[in-house]
């Protein structure tokens, strides 16, 4: 991949070796998404995996938004 930016590459990739995020995949109201748990039942949305383009217009599911989720035990 080629990075074309005015920010020096050292600054962009700083902390890359220690950067190991703990992502998990959950489904919220039918929308599958990748989230980063931040403790409790709160998580920060990383990206959506939905195939419905309209989901991407929903500001509640924008990357960086915090969501509250609870484990669904009925499926197991």
């Amino acid at each position: 991949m080629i990075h074309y930016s005015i920010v020096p590459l050292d600054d962009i990739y700083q902390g890359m070796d220690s950067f190991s995020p703990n992502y998990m995949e959950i489904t919220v109201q039918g929308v599958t998404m990748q989230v980063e748990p931040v403790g409790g039942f709160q998580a920060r949305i990383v990206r959506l995996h939905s195939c419905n383009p309209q989901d991407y217009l929903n500001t509640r599911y924008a990357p960086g938004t915090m969501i509250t989720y609870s484990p669904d035990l009925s499926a197991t």
Partner: protein
Amino acid sequence: MAETKQQEPATEEGKKNPALENIQQLGQTSTPPTGESNIFCLTIIGQVEGHIVLPPQNKTTKYEHIIPQLVAAEQNPKIEGVMIILNTVGGDVEAGLAIAEMISTLSKPTVTLVLGGGHSIGVPIAVSANYSIIAETATMTIHPIRLNGLVIGVPQTFEYLDKMQERVTRFVTKHSHVSEEKFKELMFKTGELTRDIGTTVIGADAVKYGLIDQVGGIGEAIMELNQRIDEKRKAAMTAANGVLV
């Protein structure tokens, strides 16, 4: 991590009852929604993030979120125009060009507004719309692409780099009024940037070089977009009338 702001065109909840009310009261299923924008505003800020998830100190715009948003904007009948606001320092070439290609091929009117900065890969994104506007103080840095990672010192490396650069140059010259010679001259200029070759183009200069169409702000951008939406509506009306007659 990524911050994208956009207006929400429609939520599904609570839509059924108003629709029913409309049928009962007005004899039609949908009425022009009040307070709902017909413009979709897309902000591209920070780094354009590509295939590698960048460490958290970077403020990024994720292309895998932007692309479906553009698909949704194209498909959603309530959205009549797309406004792209840029304040980016550049980013991944593939991701940036993907966004630029998506914007340039939208059938709905598009206007870009460069605020603050539209650097490096932000340049093709800035010129991708039907009409581009730059704020008076906004800057665009045009500089050569650099290779990172393992670089083998063979002629093929240079050829590859040249090809990658050509993609950016070709897109920019195709979608703006800048000539290839002028763009390359700006790209390889020495003595302008402290630690690099290239040029920083500020506001009016971008217009002078033909890169951007106009100097202005949000007022001009919305006015231009509304004008283009109106023209498109009128064209659709006359086309429809022509078929009927």
